[in-house]
């Protein structure tokens, strides 16, 4: 018999499910419902309390408990998952395309003999076949892939599914089990969780943000970006490559591993629009993108765009805004 179950491997931090978990549940429902399959939300944790009464959009919630599962530990997770997934023998396992899911995919793939499709923005069941759409090359390309009839593992791109639909108005049956395998002598230990420092500007609270991307080219050019932000009464934030260069502190990073912002205006300067960044700013009220590459994926998210050179545009824009404000 062909397995007819989708398992969502939940992500959680500090006793709370991460958004990606709810997005994956929405994805799982979308695949499972038309095919009459079941959805299991699998939560690995030390204390089941915060999770056992959640109205998740799954047919059941399976909570597996053991002390080392309190915080994410790839060695503990893979040990439990390899055991459980062999037992459950689902058709599809969903992981987040996140620093958690990416740690698990390789071990699960080789341990279970299952292919992995990463960067998934859409998964469909066509008859009994599964077809995947993935983003790659910084969001510039979409790949349609299909896999065989056995178990497949998919990494779901954050922000691809509606997280609100991951919760419903009833609590599904909940089963709590102790870990089926010993988690002694793990090669990885979780020591502590460090919260971000907020002594700098809190970019999640600023109504106007000017986002600097790689197209800004140098630290020197940031001055013009800061001038513009000041003229607008906003703050400068940045993409990962700019922060990696240490042109701006980590607290200014927008995107998957940085902050999620929803300002009234987001001005994206020299930002290509890689999915990791877009995820953190696509909820902004008004998005204006400046990038010389007309194929830059940022133009799919922006409301207004221009391909003029950002370094040429900056002085004109700052001057006109100053003039407009002075009036």
């Amino acid at each position: 018999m062909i397995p007819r179950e989708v398992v969502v491997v939940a992500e959680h931090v500090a006793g709370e499910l991460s958004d990606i978990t709810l997005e994956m549940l929405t994805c799982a429902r979308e695949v499972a419902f038309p095919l009459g399959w079941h959805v299991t939300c699998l939560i690995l944790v030390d204390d089941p309390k915060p999770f056992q009464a959640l109205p998740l959009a799954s047919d059941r919630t399976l909570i597996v408990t053991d002390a080392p599962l309190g915080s994410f530990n790839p060695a503990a997770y893979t040990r439990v998952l390899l055991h459980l997934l062999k037992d459950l023998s689902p058709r599809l396992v969903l992981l987040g395309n996140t620093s958690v899911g990416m740690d698990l995919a390789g071990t699960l793939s080789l341990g279970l003999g299952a292919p992995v499709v990463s960067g998934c923005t859409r998964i469909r069941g066509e008859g009994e076949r599964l077809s995947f759409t993935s983003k790659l090359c910084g969001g510039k390309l979409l790949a349609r892939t299909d896999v065989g009839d056995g178990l497949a593992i998919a990494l779901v791109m954050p922000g691809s599914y509606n997280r609100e639909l991951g919760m419903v108005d009833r609590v599904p049956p909940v089963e709590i089990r102790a870990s089926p395998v010993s988690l002694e002598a793990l090669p990885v230990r979780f020591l502590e969780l460090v919260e971000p420092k907020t002594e700098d500007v809190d970019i999640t609270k600023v109504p106007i943000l000017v986002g600097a991307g790689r197209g800004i080219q140098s630290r020197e050019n940031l001055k013009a970006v800061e001038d513009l932000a000041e003229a607008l009464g906003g703050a400068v934030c940045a993409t990962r490559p700019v922060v990696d260069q240490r042109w701006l502190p980590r607290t200014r990073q927008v995107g998957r591993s940085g902050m999620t912002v929803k300002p009234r205006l987001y001005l994206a300067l020299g930002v290509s629009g890689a999915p990791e960044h877009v995820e953190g700013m696509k909820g902004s009220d008004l998005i204006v993108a400046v990038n010389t590459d007309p194929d830059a994926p940022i133009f799919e998210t922006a409301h207004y765009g221009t391909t003029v050179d950002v370094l040429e545009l900056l002085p004109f824009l700052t001057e006109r805004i100053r003039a407009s404000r002075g009036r």
Partner: protein
Amino acid sequence: MKIAVILRQVPDVVQELVIAADGRSLAKDELTYITNEGDEHALEEALILKSRHAATVTAVSVGGDEARDALATAVAKGADEALLVSIPLERRGDNHGLAAYLAPAITSGGYDLVLTGVWAADQLDAGLAGLLAVQLSFPYVGGLTAVAVEPAGNRATVHKEFPGGRLGVMEVSLPAVLGIQSAEQPLRYASVSKISQAKRTMQVKEFRGSLPNVEGVHVSRLTKPEASAKADMLQGDASRVAETLVRILRERGLV
């Protein structure tokens, strides 16, 4: 301590990407290759570790001729050894095959740490680092922004990124494979003269194994995202665009 860094050549996504006539791959003639950005960060982190400990860094470059250039750059930056792993272009995107191919080359080196980028721009299956760790029976943690090795050299303390700017501090037994998200410091640059000098003087070892027959993910269609949701593009030169933009912002009460 012995550290290996795996450097992959991937399409430069800043350049225009042309889909080949088969509709399932990129047109090879139109591609520019660069070293995967995450792998560059892995090299930087390895060189940072080398500056703190008595370590040797082996740059392992995967690909064809362009992979040789990546080796010269790595040596110019401070890598001690250069290992070229020749692999045909069309197999490079499949990390399952690549991990199986690389495993014997890495095993024979007896490394304490294997570092590579947590992600590659053209990847469609699981990450190389995690797959390689399974092949080597080493532990794996990825998404890292810092690595510190204990003086005894049998454990590393790493910083792993979580959403919302949080960091997890973890301890990993060595030998291990680590997936680097970004190095602790900005990438160092190697001057053109240093790179050309490395090209002339470096000793490149070559590894050629038999390609494993691993069934990967089958791409049925490659497309560019649809332009339906495209931004309203503002026309004209910089001055004109600035004028239009300020009008839009003013209409919305933003200036």
